[in-house]
């Protein structure tokens, strides 16, 4: 899931080198914290959160595969 988030984020931003994802696991729950450069925030969030929500939808597919639940937070730098 971390790899999926990193791949999508790096492909969308102007500063792929600034993309980092922290993965925090608590039993069946996975929290992903996505860090991007300040001026790339809009690219990974999108209008009305549309991009971030689409990423969350795809993450859910990966999460269901290993029976976990996933949360994605885009973290302000």
């Amino acid at each position, binding site marked *: 899931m971390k*790899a*999926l988030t990193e*791949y*999508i984020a*790096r*492909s*969308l931003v102007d500063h*792929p080198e600034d993309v980092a994802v922290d993965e925090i696991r608590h039993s069946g729950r996975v929290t992903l914290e996505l860090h991007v450069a300040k001026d790339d925030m809009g690219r990974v969030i999108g209008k*009305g959160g*549309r*991009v971030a*929500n*689409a*990423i969350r*939808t*795809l993450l*859910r*597919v*990966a999460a*269901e*595969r*290993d029976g976990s639940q996933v949360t994605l937070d885009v973290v302000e730098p």
Partner: protein
Amino acid sequence: MNERTTLEKIAASVDEAVADGLAELGLPAEAVDVEVLDSGSRGLLGIGGRQARVRLTIKPQPAGPDAGPAAEPLPAAEADDDLLRIARQTVTELLDKMKVPAFVDIRYGSADEEGSRPVLVDIHGDDLGVLIGRRAEILNALQYIVNLIVSKQAGHWVQVTIDVEGYRARRERQLRQMAQRMADQAVKTGHRQSLEPMPANERRLIHIELRDHPDVTTQSVGDEPARKVTIVPK
């Protein structure tokens, strides 16, 4: 540059194995030599088939910044084939990282009014319901992300349409039939008929289907994602 210089891949066909290998290496087809180790066989009714095996060997790099590893955005697409390659690589990478094994076919659709051709992606394989989801939620999310990534990497807007196991074609037929049925209902009862909420591409189909209907007009009402088509008797 990746320290690995050769990679062996196994997949259902030679083409798939090569595509998988290229996606994993993040390299365009020109950057590798392909050696077919086993061309595989389909088997009877999918039983007893043999997987294809290929070996990709990375060609020595000419000096220069081109053809870096996948994490770097590809250079802007100058040729059409670059576009198809970017689209294939993007979809393959996403499916791989979503842990959904599937095959990917890529081609151009027919040109629209402005002369730009959409890229059509067909995903097929077993048990791909996970890629569609309720009201195609997952399929639409995948298509949206692929559109963004391919357009970003190509340097201009590219329309990519993704279908899974013919889902969109079946859904389109259903929607057209439903549109006609609800239009009949609107005429018969004299009352406007509201359809269920739909994404923009599906609402568009309904509007087009009923555009020339003599007795009804259509409009979209409400806010995303609950926006829906209303069929109004004239």
